[in-house]
């Protein structure tokens, strides 16, 4: 039933991206520009990874939350009608339970995003009419950050945010 023996389609550039992301947090303003100039190779490698993913599923290749939302063409309205359940504190970032449900009628899609991840878009669920707008999944979270739930209902996007504190990041897991 399975034939998963092919080599990975993408090179192992993840470390470069991880470092790149961390540097973005550390550097500000002109320093960030300087950093990018000093490490052109890393930047180039990160771009190559993104280009590879972009060909298939654009938003999954986005390197930031803003970029992911732009690629989804979503300008979400914050809403209390989305129930997002994430633990306040988790020890292991490699297994963080996330639950999303919503009271909106005609929910078509549910997205889960983790702000600190190298690629923030974690999962997308396409919800047909006879399925309830509810999904539960366990995700990896790189470091303490906001988890976002995005609900696509009748052509509009709604969002809910919840912060979670992670003691051991799930980046290397």
């Amino acid at each position, binding site marked *: *039933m399975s034939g998963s023996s092919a*080599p*990975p389609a993408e090179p192992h550039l*993840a470390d470069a991206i991880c470092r790149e992301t961390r540097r973005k947090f550390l550097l500000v303003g002109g320093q960030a520009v300087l950093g990018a100039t000093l490490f052109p190779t890393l930047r180039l490698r990160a771009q190559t990874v993104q280009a590879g993913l972009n060909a298939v599923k654009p938003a999954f290749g986005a390197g930031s939350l803003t970029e992911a939302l732009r690629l989804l063409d979503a300008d979400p309205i914050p809403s209390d009608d989305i129930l997002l359940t994430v633990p306040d504190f988790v020890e292991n970032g*490699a297994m963080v339970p996330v639950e999303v449900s919503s009271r909106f009628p005609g929910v078509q899609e549910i997205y889960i995003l983790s702000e600190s991840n190298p690629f923030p878009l974690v999962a*997308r*669920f396409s919800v047909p009419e006879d399925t309830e707008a*509810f999904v*539960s999944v366990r995700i990896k979270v790189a470091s303490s950050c906001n988890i976002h739930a995005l609900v696509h209902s009748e052509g509009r996007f709604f969002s809910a945010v919840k912060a979670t504190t992670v003691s051991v990041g799930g980046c290397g897991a």
Partner: protein
Amino acid sequence: MPDSIRIRAQVKNGGTDIHVLMPHPMETGFKKDAAGAFIPAHYITDVDIVVAGRTVLKATLSRAVAEDPLLFFRIKGGHADDPIQVSWVDNWGGRRVDESVIKAAV
């Protein structure tokens, strides 16, 4: 070959609760092995869940879904003995399809 998909579907409160566990390493590509070399990214990208010939959930996953993805969701309706089929595809082109049936309410 990856282990079979564990499927638990049961009629409950007028709907059906569906739990799906898909054994898979879900490697991010960020992790290094003992020798310091990167372990290639290997993760499920697409999941399709079909009940009695009707697609009830399509999931697109990234490397950031935890190892051995566990999904839990609910459908409206559903009857005992309805067939349920779960299939996944990973980024190496690997795939797995497993079937089960919905159990009656307890």
